[in-house]
């Protein structure tokens, strides 16, 4: 099952903070973590990262790995610096208003699976 960001944004009602122009990007899977080194170990190309960390290093990690984007959940409104950095790096930054459980459950139902490292 392959999906692009646009389909995920629409089916989950995500807020697009950055990346209105990046929504054609195909998504290979999802990964949930609030630890950056965990994502660096397990995140894969084109994977969507779900986290409540909302500082600039999140964008650095997403960009280094070539992730499809970041979905922020259950965190304060991100600082302008984060939004700026995501724009600079071309990382789609999305926000979900519900809980991580609901988000991941819905994504799974839609056919998305966990990303697997090679």
């Amino acid at each position, binding site marked *: 099952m392959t999906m692009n960001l646009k389909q995920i944004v629409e089916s989950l009602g995500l807020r697009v903070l950055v990346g209105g122009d990046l929504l054609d990007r195909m998504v290979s899977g999802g990964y949930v973590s609030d630890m950056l080194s965990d994502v660096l170990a397990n995140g894969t*190309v084109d994977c969507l990262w779900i986290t409540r960390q909302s500082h600039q290093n999140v964008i650095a990690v997403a960009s280094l790995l070539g992730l499809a984007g970041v979905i922020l959940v259950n965190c304060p409104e991100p600082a302008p610096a984060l939004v700026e950095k995501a724009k600079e790096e071309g990382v789609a930054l999305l926000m979900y208003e519900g809980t991580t459980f609901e988000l991941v459950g819905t994504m799974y139902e839609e056919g998305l699976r966990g990303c697997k490292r090679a």
Partner: protein
Amino acid sequence: MVDNGVLDVAYPVVGGDFGQAGEGASKLKRVLQQIGLAPSMVRRIAVASYEAELNIVIHAFSGMLKAKITASKVEVWAEDQGPGIPNVELAMTEGYSTAPDHIRALGFGAGLGLPNIRRNADAMEITTALGTGTTVYMAFSNVVRKEQ
């Protein structure tokens, strides 16, 4: 500087500066992309360099991220002035971290950085002196270039 097909780069790293953290690794990544290394190779080097750079930001005072790129391999050194590592074997253990709570709250301190470097690099060596600093050496051999 390019000399005889060797490219040397060096980026300063400031301890405790989380705003700039990762800039060195991201600049190195761009250089490697421009040279035309295969994306999977670029990713391995960038991830390992980011982990070593962040270790300087988190655990040391200041340092440098240096790289030497030749046709056959890429070598990276993350050198710092810092406290040094008392027990390297322990530090290399997955899950071992001395990061304080306020650092963990930012999502660092899983104790996975050094193991991530080991997994991504073809060779790795840590040289450390207590009260002086640490150098993490990483080598990536079998450089693969993008299909032309």
